[in-house]
């Protein structure tokens, strides 16, 4: 199972490197406005083919590109109820602080757990390969953090139950 992790991340990295070629493009609909076309979606000619990369039925990444912006949505593996709750809370925590993340989207795309929005302004300010590195690193770390949190929850629950039941 874990033998698919490295090829999965490699495929995501390669696709991201291809899709993250963005250039400045002002809105064709409203003058003097500059909007991320992947979010607005009014002009079909500016949108690229959306592409999915999946590791199994539960984990996948959706990459939607356009001329000036890129949206990456990640579905994280959630094996049981407690992981679902942990994932939801953790993602919510990060999405509330999306300003500080710069490339994070405040709401995930339907069907996924977390979404990133990268615009041409970001690629002008930051190195493209570093942004891609960040996303891949994020995907790797999420799984580790989730298992760590799950262990912490279980051990805390065990300790508090022990202390409580000592009274009886």
């Amino acid at each position, binding site marked *: 199972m874990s*033998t*698919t992790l490295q*090829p*999965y991340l*490699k*495929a995501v990295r*390669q*696709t991201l*490197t*291809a*899709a993250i*070629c963005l250039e400045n493009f002002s809105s064709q609909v409203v003058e003097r406005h500059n909007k991320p076309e992947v979010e607005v979606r009014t*002009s*079909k*000619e500016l949108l*690229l*083919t959306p*592409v*999915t*990369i*999946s*590791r*199994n*039925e539960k984990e*996948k990444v959706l990459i939607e*590109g356009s001329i000036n912006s890129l949206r990456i949505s990640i579905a994280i593996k959630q094996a049981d109820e407690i992981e679902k709750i942990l994932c939801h809370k953790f993602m919510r925590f990060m999405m509330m602080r999306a300003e500080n993340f710069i490339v994070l989207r405040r709401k995930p795309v339907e069907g996924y757990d977390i979404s990133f929005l990268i615009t041409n302004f970001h690629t002008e300010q930051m190195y493209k390969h570093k942004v891609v590195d960040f996303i891949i690193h994020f995907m790797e770390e999420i799984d580790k953090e989730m298992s760590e949190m799950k262990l912490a929850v279980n051990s805390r629950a065990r300790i508090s139950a022990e202390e409580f039941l000592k009274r009886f």
Partner: protein
Amino acid sequence: MSKNTRNTAFRKVDVDQYGEEVYEEDQTADEGATGPSDAEVQSMLAKGRNGDALQYVLTNAPLTSKNQGVKDKAAQTVLKVLMSLKANEIEGSLKGLDQAKQDTLMKYIYRGFENPSEGSSAQLLVWHDKLFAVTGVGSIVRVLTDRKRV
């Protein structure tokens, strides 16, 4: 005198569609493109000619067809062929492909990722890796930008 001004239907007209530079998707649909024949592919796989089966399905890919059913059927056939090839045979079969077929194959790999089933994603990841080693980022860019969806 002004009976015609009662009619306010003009307000509902979408004026944007009449603009000069409105983009229209290429309307020319090739009704003849029916995709690879399932029976043909089955017979090739049964004989063990996996490389030939791959060449056949990629040559007959219904790229210009507007019929979604035809495309879905072709995608399933290609997925079957991709699953049937073993890991060590993949490199050999990739050698015989020209650029157009490589791009079509990359499109089908991404199409296969959209409907993951038992073990399909793992095999597709191997395909993706091997094909990328041959083609580089170029084929992924062509998959993203080509209007002819698979």
